[in-house]
């Protein structure tokens, strides 16, 4: 039962990653791409982390997985912010 | 088991070939350096494939150590080449 749920979670995570990647490739400009990438990937990673936690019984490892997820979220938020701000400034200086 | 080894070592050779070709074709510094790094990654992949002994057995640690050395040497050489290029650009601008 847990296994099935875990696999389901991981697959939905993969789905979010896939849509994030498609967004990265298909969307027209840098802001929408960032949007797709950061949001979809964070949720995707959350689902995958959830699935892996269900499969893993060691509590310490589970805590590590959660920490990794939080770190990646923070890093992707900040780097998206920096990329977007840089792009915005270049955008303005172009005008 | 052999088939995995074969697959990855062929991939290593392919990477080596792609990098080698681009190194010989490019004459600008950064593309050539990227190509050299790709070429090196191919050699590393060959090493690691040799070390891999199947899903159940323990891999050979020696090639792992060699590749670790190789990665560090590669990054040093990259840093140095980029610095040389930067100096040349600065002299060109003067």
């Amino acid at each position, binding site marked *: 039962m847990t296994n099935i749920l875990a696999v389901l979670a991981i697959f939905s995570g993969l789905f979010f990653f896939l849509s994030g990647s498609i967004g990265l490739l298909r969307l027209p400009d840098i802001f929408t791409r960032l949007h797709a990438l950061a949001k979809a990937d964070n949720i995707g990673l959350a689902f995958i982390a959830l699935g892996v936690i269900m499969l893993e019984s060691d509590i310490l490892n589970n805590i590590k997985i959660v920490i990794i997820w939080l*770190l990646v979220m923070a*890093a992707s938020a900040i780097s998206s*912010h*920096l990329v977007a701000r840089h792009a915005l400034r270049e955008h303005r200086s172009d005008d | 088991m052999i088939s*995995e080894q*074969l697959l*990855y*070592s062929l*991939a290593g*050779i*392919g*990477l080596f*070939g792609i*990098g080698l*070709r*681009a190194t010989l*074709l*490019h004459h*600008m*510094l*950064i*593309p050539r*350096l*990227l*190509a050299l*790094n*790709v070429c090196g*990654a*191919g050699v*590393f*992949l*060959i090493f*690691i494939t040799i*070390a891999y002994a199947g899903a159940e057995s*323990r*891999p*050979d*640690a*020696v090639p*792992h*150590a*060699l*590749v*670790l*050395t190789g990665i*560090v*040497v590669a*990054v*040093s*050489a*990259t*840093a*140095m080449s*980029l*610095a*040389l*290029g*930067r*100096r040349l650009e*600065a002299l060109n601008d003067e």
Partner: protein
Amino acid sequence: MIELLWSVFDLSLVLLLLALAWGTCSTRDVMRAVTLFIAMGLLLAIIWARLKAPDLALAEAVIGAGISGALFLSAIKDYPSTITVSHRTPVLQGLINAFTLALVILMSWAVWHGLNMSDGIRLSDQVVAQAPVSGVSNPVTAVLLNFRAYDTLLELAVVLTAVLTVLTLNDRRYSHVVSSPLLQGMTHWLVPLLVVTSGYLLWVGAHAPGGAFQAGAMLAAAMILLQLAFPSRRQQFSLYLVRFLLVIGIFTFVVVGIWMLLLNDVFLAFDPDWAGTLILIIETMATLSIATALALAYLGGRPMGWEEGARNNSASTENEGAG
């Protein structure tokens, strides 16, 4: 079924790897080439993990993709952004293509034969057999810092030579300043975390994946992050300290080696009882040196005042000459 899935996984990793490599080498946009190169580095890290080389996966992610990527990214600002593909004549291009293809086929043929020909006697058995007396239980660390420690010593010399060259050639780069309160906020709590992680990697390298190079690169990342987020703070580093940190790794290595030479008549021959401690001391110092070296390499040149000592010296000798 499972085997089939593994094959599909392997095949897609390999194809993606080759595609990224091809993209890196053939695109005309420098920025794109560097991005693809970094992506290739991350994919390689996954492949190393797949091939049961976790030490390398760590090293590739931090050094191969991370530090190399950062070096390239900061360098491309100094360059034109389009690649003029080749100034070679079509004939020469054809020759290069044919030559590379022939070489690839030849090597594949050799490997096809070679995979079956080994007599199975590898160093791996010896490594496992001798690991208990090497002082560490992670076989990769045992090879790097005991069995083939001399290679690692020379490798540190390579790193030092490269950084010295960077320092002699240019002044440091000042252009890349990213001041953002968000980044500064994150840096505040990320840097301590990176330092702790680096220490953990160093310590854990004795019995699990990790070690001086990964730890050093991690520490370098922390230094780089600090310099990016707080551009004004870097002047407070004492340059004497930086010099000292740069050489301390090799120096400790050599001193321990000579000590063992005097003790056991063989260079770098550690006593099994002491080996673990000695390796940890060497690795700690090497971590500091590697971190300093990589961070200086990222800056792209010498910090302000790096050669003051030599300059003062020259002034004084000139005065002596005049007097």
